[in-house]
Every structure is written in structure tokens, then in C-alpha cells.
């Protein structure tokens, strides 16, 4: 869901489908693992370093990959796919075949209404909600945040207000990448770290963003919950295989009936 937030930011504002996003999640998780686990530094060092690195890569990819393509959607899509193939493949070569694990920051499980939940998962959910709120506040109540929304809603009008869209794009890439890094920290501690870890969450978050409505933070959070619950419910009731079909059938229906997404606005 955290990753979806990053996706919604970029996709909503710039209509850029950034396939590298999943790879940022993965690289950040590896950085955190390397600094925090392998080298034994404390987590409060490892996570900020990963965030800084991800933000840096975000800015670089904006500058050297997406800006030269003028944010043309299909071209960006292909470049992203290419870059993510290359990064993933290089990661296998560099990190080797062994998946790594980031130890849970909150080990153990709690019992919630008869269901056991790992505390780490609750922590991840909590972090996600907090960041969603922070992001919401940022976009609605700060000047750079408002500028970002202005560019999303009407790029030219924003230009006439004296906003420089390019610098807004840089900020958007940076924040989105930083969110990916936090996502990497959470995913890594729940699911382990390996070069493929970013792929599925990215596809999922893309779907979440669509259902939630592009660029809508509340929509993204709600859709994330909705998808998560729907996944678990169908999976639990019908078994993995049938759930796989039903999930996508539901997705098709939702999109056909409400093409703007469940919580989307009219564009």
C-alpha cells in the first residue's frame, strides 16, 4: 500500500507509470539489509540512508530517463520496463541467490478477535496510515504540496501562477522514491529481501491506484484496504486458484461499472 502511495503520486501528477518503482523498493530493502543487518548498524541509520539513496535514484531517473522522453506515457513505460529488467538482473548477479531477511522491528504476534497478526504487519499498516496522512497534509496544506496538486490539475495554469512544473516533478519523484524506500523497509521485514520482491507489489499497487482513482490519496488507502480484504476473503473462502480468477473478474467489473475507480473524481 505504501508503494501504491508512491505510484499514485507519480501516476496522478505526471501520468508516468514508473516501472523502476518496484526496483527502488527492492534496492532500498537491500541497502537496509546491508547496513542494518550485514554491517550491524542500527536501523535508524540504515533506513534514512536507504531513503536518501532511493530519493537520489528517483531524481536521477527523472532527469535522465523520463524528462528526455517528455513524460510520454508509453515511452516511459518501456524505459521503465527496460531499466527494471536490467536492475533486477544485475541484482541477482550482485546479491547472489540467497534471499535475505530484515528482522522484524516488532517481533511476535498479537491476537485480534480470534485472528493472529504479526506485530510487524500491524506496524507496517500503522506506518502506512501515518505516511498517508502526512502525505495528505503535505499536499493540501503546504505550498510545495499545493503546487504539486496545481500542476496535476492544470499544468499550464500552474505555469501562469509562477510554478515551475519541472521542479515539481523532481519533488514528486523524490517523495515517491522515498515512499518506495519505506515500503522496502516494511516489505523486507515482513516478506524477506530478494531481487524479485518489487515486481508483484508494483503490479498490485498499480491496480490499487486505478481502483482508488488516480491521484487520490484517500482513494488509494481505501482501495488498498479493499483489495487486501477482498484478496483474503476470496482466497480464504474459495482457495487460491479460484480466488485468482474471481479477483480479476471483480476488477474488470469495477472498472467497467465505475471507470473512474471506486473513489475517483471526474477528470
Amino acid at each position: 500500500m505504501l508503494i501504491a502511495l508512491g505510484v499514485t503520486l507519480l501516476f496522478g501528477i505526471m501520468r508516468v507509470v514508473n516501472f523502476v518503482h518496484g526496483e527502488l523498493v527492492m534496492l532500498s530493502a537491500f541497502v537496509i539489509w546491508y547496513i542494518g543487518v550485514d554491517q550491524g548498524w542500527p536501523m535508524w541509520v540504515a533506513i534514512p540512508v536507504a531513503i536518501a539513496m532511493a530519493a537520489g535514484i528517483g531524481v536521477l531517473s527523472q532527469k535522465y530517463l523520463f524528462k528526455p522522453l517528455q513524460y510520454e506515457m508509453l515511452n516511459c513505460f518501456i524505459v521503465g520496463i527496460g531499466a527494471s529488467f536490467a536492475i533486477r538482473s544485475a541484482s541477482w548477479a550482485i546479491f547472489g541467490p540467497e534471499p535475505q531477511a530484515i528482522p522484524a522491528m516488532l517481533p511476535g504476534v498479537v491476537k485480534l478477535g480470534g485472528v493472529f497478526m504479526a506485530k510487524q504487519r500491524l506496524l507496517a499498516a500503522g506506518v502506512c496510515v501515518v505516511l498517508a496522512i502526512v502525505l495528505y497534509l503535505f499536499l493540501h496544506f503546504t505550498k510545495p504540496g499545493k503546487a504539486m496538486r496545481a500542476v496535476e490539475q492544470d499544468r499550464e495554469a500552474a505555469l501562469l501562477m509562477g510554478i515551475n512544473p519541472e521542479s515539481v516533478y523532481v519533488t514528486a519523484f523524490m517523495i515517491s522514491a522515498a515512499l518506495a524506500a519505506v515500503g522496502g523497509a516494511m516489505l523486507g521485514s515482513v516478506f524477506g529481501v530478494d531481487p524479485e520482491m518489487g515486481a508483484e507489489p508494483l503490479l498490485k499497487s498499480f491496480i490499487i491506484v486505478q481502483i482508488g482513482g488516480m491521484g487520490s490519496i484517500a482513494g488509494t488507502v481505501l482501495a488498498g484496504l479493499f483489495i487486501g480484504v477482498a484478496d483474503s476473503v476470496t482466497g480464504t473462502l474459495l482457495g487460491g486458484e479460484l480466488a485468482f480468477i474471481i479477483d480479476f473478474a471483480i476488477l474488470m467489473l469495477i472498472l467497467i461499472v465505475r471507470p473512474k475507480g471506486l473513489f475517483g473524481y471526474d477528470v
Partner: protein
Amino acid sequence: MLLEVSSIAISYGTAQVLHGVSLTVADGETVTLIGANGAGKTSCLRAISGLEPLTAGAISFDGERIDGLTPRQRLERGLVHVPEGKRLFPRMTVRDNLAMGAFLRSDANAVRSDIEAMYARFPILKARHGQAAGSLSGGEQQILAFARGLMARPKLLLIDEPTVGLSPLMVKELSAAMRAIHADGVAILLVEQNAAMALRLATRGYLLETGACVAEDNTKALMANDYVRKAYLGV
């Protein structure tokens, strides 16, 4: 002269849309640019505010060459463009739209009092201040667009087609608003298809046809001109 545009030209790809247009606006003056659809009026405004690069000619503002500057730098000098089709931020509140108008200003307190002043001048905005701009009626949106433009404390307001698609009653209200802006000492360069209204508002006018200036005079004389009467005033 506040604004001096001298023989500017613009091309989109291979098509030249402006061929050497020149015009001036003095401090506090209201000037109108009339002409048929596609005559190049909007392109002219877009060139002045920096949305379109020039292929020839020069633009000065307040005695300074501005045709190399970014839209942002022109805005800083007091040149504000209220674009065609309102171009509000539809999913921001009325208040936020006003605040965006003052994006470059860092005097938070003055901005706040300016917003209050806008509310006082246009009570409808106050009544709608928490609503999304996209949910306003066409006329309300146009008023918001004016107000947003004024939030930058302009010396010159470029206004593009404010009355398109509005009821006669609304057109009247907008004329009143523009008169009030003019009364505050803000110069206006108004592009309008509704030539009759534009000529009544302005003191001088330019007639643009297929990318070139074909007539320039004070508005009384233009209104009296036979060609203008036949072609644009429909009498």
C-alpha cells in the same frame, strides 16, 4: 508605456499564426483586442505571458525587455494572464485557488488580507470558499479566475475570452467586475469575441485578422468604423 509589443511573430510548427503584431498598453489603461476566431488573439496573449516563444519581434514591460524571460519572471514583474477557459484548479477549494494566485508572494499576512479583500469585493466567492472550484457555475468560475489573477497584485491583467458561454446577466456582472479592476488602477488587455462589450469597456482597441493587426484606434472610432460594424458588431 507599460507594455510595448513590437512586431512579434509566432509559429506552430510550419504554420505562422502571428505576423508582426504590434500593440501598446499604457499604465492603468484598458485596451481590447478583437477579431474573429483563429485571428491570433489568444496566441498574442500567450506570447506576452511567455507561454509561447517568439520567432521574431520584442516585448517590453515597464521599460524592460521581457521576451526572454520565463512566465514566472514576467509574473514577478506584475504581468498576470487570466487564460481562456478559466483554467482553475478544479479539485482545489475556492480559497486555495485564490492562494495559488499569490503563489510567488511570501508575505503570508498580506495574502490573507488580500483574500479577505477579494471576498469583500466578490461576495459569491466568500459564500463558496470551501467548495471545489470545479463545482462552481461558469460565471462564478470566471469571477474566481479574475480574483485569482488579482491575488498576484498585477500591474497589467491579460484577460482572455472571459464571457464565452455565459448568460447576458453574467456578462453584465463580469463587465462590472472588470470596470472595478480598472478603477483600481490595474491596466487590462482584454481579448474578446463579444466585440460590442469589449469596445464599451476599453478606451482603445486593436482589430486582428489572420494573425496581423488591421486596425487600431480609440474605441469610439472603431465602433463607428463601417467595416468593424458590419463584420464584428453585427449591425
